[in-house]
């Protein structure tokens, strides 16, 4: 949608030509100002000054630097909360990358990635979750494959990942639950 003909690209330093509106149901997305950015992939950027309240649906990757309250649904696409992004919403997407702040539950069918200085206050449901060292998180993490983006509140096909048993698991069967307390000195 955003692919440009290189031959009509404005000269460096001149303002970019007006862009067609993005396929976002609420709010006015602002195109990425960097004219040299490779736009082969559909990416919409919601700028710092944009405030959206309501339901945000889309079918392309989205980067949010502004404020969003309500619900965000990006089926099969990547949602990036930029460093300036402030989200107070339920989020459903294929993948969610957090560099800003999110207050609300996040459901991703692929991955949630909370980067350094990113913050999430809410419950995460996703088969893969990565949390960087300097990130803030408060809530719960459920990495079992249930819930799909776009179907809030309706978990789909619960698939439990294989849970490898730690070494020594067999010991438990031999140790009665009411075994007396052991006092050991070791390590």
């Amino acid at each position, binding site marked *: 949608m955003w692919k440009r003909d290189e031959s009509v690209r404005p000269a460096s330093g001149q303002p970019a030509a007006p862009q067609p509106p993005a396929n976002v149901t609420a709010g006015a997305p602002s195109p990425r100002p960097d004219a040299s950015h490779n736009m082969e992939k559909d990416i919409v950027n919601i700028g710092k000054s944009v405030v959206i309240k309501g339901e945000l649906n889309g079918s392309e990757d989205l980067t949010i630097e502004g404020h969003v309250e309500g619900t965000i649904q990006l089926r099969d696409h990547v949602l990036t909360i930029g460093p300036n992004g402030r989200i107070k919403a339920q989020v459903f997407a294929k993948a969610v990358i957090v560099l800003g702040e999110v207050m609300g539950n996040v459901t991703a069918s692929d991955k949630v990635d909370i980067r350094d200085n990113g913050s999430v206050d809410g419950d995460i449901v996703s088969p893969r979750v990565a949390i960087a060292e300097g990130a803030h998180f*408060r809530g719960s*993490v459920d*990495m079992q494959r249930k819930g799909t983006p776009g179907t809030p509140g309706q978990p789909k096909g619960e698939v*439990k*990942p294989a849970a490898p048993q730690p070494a020594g698991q067999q010991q438990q069967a031999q140790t009665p639950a009411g075994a007396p307390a052991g006092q*050991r000195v070791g390590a």
Partner: protein
Amino acid sequence: MGLLDRIAPRRNETEVPAAAPASVGEPLFATKALRKFLINLTSHESPVLLDLGPVVGGNVTFFGEQLGCKIFVEDIFADLDRHARGGTLDALPEFLKTRFPQADGSVDGILCWDIIDYMDRAAAQALANELTRVLRPDGALLGFFGTAPPRDSRYTKYVIVDEVNLKHRPYPASRGRQAILLNRDIIRLFHGLRVSDSFLLQNNLREILFRKPAS
């Protein structure tokens, strides 16, 4: 082999640092109780874990991806730090009484780490009561307790490397460790639980694994 020959190797053993250097330069610390904690945790269907420390991405991956746990991260160190900085430590026990949204008997495992060491008696008791409340019968609680005099004001992030090794990652704290708790004091704190295993490590850390008796 004479008596001195038998003792000599033990002397040498004490000179070995408790933490073996890791390949990446961060020392590893042995843990004895974690394996037993994991065995108990994974014996439950879709186990629910409560982690009282700051969020550690590797730990989330370990428990979530490898063990299939649902993890609640409730950073009590942050709460303690906030009260210490704000001069409201007196209010901490009351705060802790309503801190945990989890229902009674809904958690299969609790990683208490060493948070108790940094608390006054009243706050520690309030926390222990709440943890006992949310722990499911036959669930397990893993607690670390220092046995050496407190030296500095640092908290520690415990990063799980595997079931027998941890990395200790210190970070600044507003409050140092309080008085060292004796075994009987610890047992009294968690009077609703039963000590399953207790290990005294060479790094002066006591690991205690509690289990809640099945009702």
